[in-house]
């Protein structure tokens, strides 16, 4: 996968994850272009389209569009299910997730995405495993404030 975008029907970008090094200027341009194209599509149209030298797979969930760019040889249908799996993960974590959750907890959304996809590839497709990893990380963050021991910092413990 090259990148994933989440945006609302009003064209507000909620999440952007890029899996290749791209200049900021180019990112902005691509996002604008893609948003225009996807938002212009009607509901009954198919979920795939060709854009530049990539394939775009998108799906709308409530007020959010989930949009992925994949390469020529990648499988479109399985990418649709990648999107669905991601939404399921968000749903499990936030409990009946809605767009507001993603807005106010964007760093968590990124974190969940990172646990699920790395470098554009799926890490683990088991919902349980991914959620477990996130839970563990959350618990760690809940621990007390003190910095790790000096020894730990020096990598000696």
């Amino acid at each position, binding site marked *: 996968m090259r990148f994933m975008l989440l945006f*609302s029907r009003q*064209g*507000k*970008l909620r999440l*952007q994850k890029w899996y290749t*090094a791209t200049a900021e200027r180019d990112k902005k*341009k691509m996002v*604008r272009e893609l*948003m*225009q194209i996807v938002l212009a599509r009607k*509901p*009954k*149209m*198919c979920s*795939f*389209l*060709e854009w530049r030298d990539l394939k775009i797979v998108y799906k*709308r*969930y*409530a*007020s*959010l569009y989930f949009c992925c760019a994949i390469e020529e040889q990648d*499988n479109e*249908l*399985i990418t*649709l*299910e990648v999107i669905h799996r991601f*939404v399921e993960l968000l*749903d499990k*974590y936030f*409990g009946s997730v*809605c767009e*507001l959750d993603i807005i*106010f*907890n*964007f*760093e968590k959304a990124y*974190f969940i995405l*990172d646990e699920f996809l*790395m*470098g554009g*590839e*799926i*890490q*683990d*497709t*088991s919902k349980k*495993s991914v959620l477990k*990893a996130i839970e*563990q*990380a959350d618990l*760690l*963050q*809940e621990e007390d*404030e003190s910095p*790790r021991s000096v020894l*730990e*910092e*020096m*990598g000696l413990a």
Partner: protein
Amino acid sequence: MPAVSKGDGMRGLAVFISDIRNCKSKEAEIKRINKELANIRSKFKGDKALDGYSKKKYVCKLLFIFLLGHDIDFGHMEAVNLLSSNKPAGGYLFISVLVNSNSELIRLINNAIKNDLSSRNPTFMCLALHCIANVGSREMAEAFASEIPRILVAGDTMDSVKQSAALCLLRLYKTSPDLVLMGEWTSRVVHLLNDQHMGVVTAAISLITCLSQKNPDEFKTCVSLAVSRLSRIVSSASTDLQDYTYYFVPAPWLSCKLLRLLQCYPPPEDGAVKGRLVECLETILNKAQEPPKSKKVQHSNAKNAILFEAISLIIHYDSEPNLLVRACNQLGQFLQHRETNLRYLALESMCTLASSEFSHEAVKTHIETVINALKTERDVSVRQRAADLLYAMCDRSNAKQIVAEMLSYLETADYSIREEMVLKVAILAEKYAVDYSWYVDTILNLIRIAGDYVSEEVWYRVIQIVINRDDVQGYAAKTVFEALQAPACHENMVKVGGYILGEFGNLIAGDPRSSPLVQFNLLHSKFHLCSVPTRALLLSAYIKFINLFPETKATIQEVLRCDSQIRNSDVELQQRAVEYLKLSSIASTDVLATVLEEMPPFPERESSILAKLKKKKGPGTVSVTDLEDSKREGGELNGGGERGPDTAAMASSNASTPSPSADLLGIRSAAPVGAAPASAGSLLVDVFSEAGPAAPSAAVNDDGFLRDLEQPTETCDSLLVEGSGDSE
């Protein structure tokens, strides 16, 4: 709302986000942001050391501001500091998103990462690996590329860390392949395919697939492992794989990846392995015919994803006729499916199937369905796929039908795809022309329907063909003459018409309806509507007329003599008018006849149209067989007398063998087509000037796309409710 307790709630962040959302204008938003930036800046500079919670809050705020689209130029140091706290996630996220090339910072970051990698704590290790994968810079590759393979294959590495390590390594390999040396790790990495943990296998496969593309020999042991893994999954009951079963489909992602990996290699040589694989593929094809286990679209998507990937593999092998035909039939079923997605993918897959010799005929049987799709599909992307498939399945037997359909589609096609369609129709018309008058008709139709999108290569080509083939010259002259009668005809038509009448107008001059003067008047009636290059071409046609039809000399000289020509502000036009006028006055009929002799046939060169299509669509579109085919067909191009039984015999065989003889046009499309005959010296200057590049696609409207900030309208609608998304 969140099920997890939010002890580190970061109220400050939530308040800030609310403030931004409530801003009623862009200006208000910028003001609020600047206020916050100033606040954060002062806090970071302040004397009091910030506690971890505050630091994290501010780093997240900066991140939020950046993601809104504003530039951030500070905060990196604080983010790096967070890395050594026990809440490093925010810091890592900041660094991955706001990459900074400050070498001091990089050193600190790499240090933090190194610590985390050796910490033995899986969470920290994973965070570090994620950061490396997200940034993926060369510096990181240099620092860690040797460490990560070790982590990957170490016996005591936790599964979750192994997954991260595999994908991290993949990322580094993609950006800095020279720094990732597999060497001693190769067999251990391949062995990961047998790992107990499906997640590890999933991650490892992505890595192995990429590595085997670059080093197929080193990794070829993965093939048999992949086949046995796939076999186990495909034949498993849906309860076996538990957590990895997705809506009743066993391990769909893993299956797809295994099938992808197998596409990096030719069919397995070992008989047993091959047999098992064929069995697998047949099972997958069989399952597609079974009634679905669930009505949910996720089930069918997952099942079909595997099916399509299996079909891709079958097409890639191109060696099992039975499987190929079955695949083709399956796709044929999908062509008429309710779901648009499946119709789209079926059309896409069939395109590749069409080029295989085993299945080409099977694909052709679906021509009516595809034509119907072209006419009736409401989604333009699906229509485009149908057009692509028609192009791919075209051969002698159906060329006329397909070209006719593509022409009628062109009349209503999207502007963005017209140029490509024009090129394709031109290629097909030339490649499969048995009857060259049909070819001429087709190209002229192209100009009539989509004149703006007919590039130079296309109309140069039709002229070259007419010049090279005696048998079609009369027909061309007549057809072009008729086409020019239309009250509004495209400028490209005038160019073609002008040239052809100039060369072959004599062939129709006998008929009083197309006598020389009538021809001249027809051309001249368009003169003032045309651009400079076209007018230059027409002037050349006029002097040719003087040679062909001496009775028109007076009339034409009159035209050349008038002020608007000999004092024309354009240098080229003026020069031509003056020189042609002079030439017609002082040259004897013999000299004139020699100078304006009929154009000699063009030498054979490679088709520039094919080259242009390839450039437009990117590599891999025009298959090698296409080019070879055109080379072979090109041999028929020259010389009118070769038509008949010979060409028919050549036509019936579809197998393409590269012919040592003719190519088509020169790739050097800059070469002036109307090269001056040697004897004329420099009298006839370059007739066809170079046109500029094709119009760029519609520019994205930069200003104001997101200017007006409407009130926030995001709903609290749950994303995963039935019917809240798009239904199929």
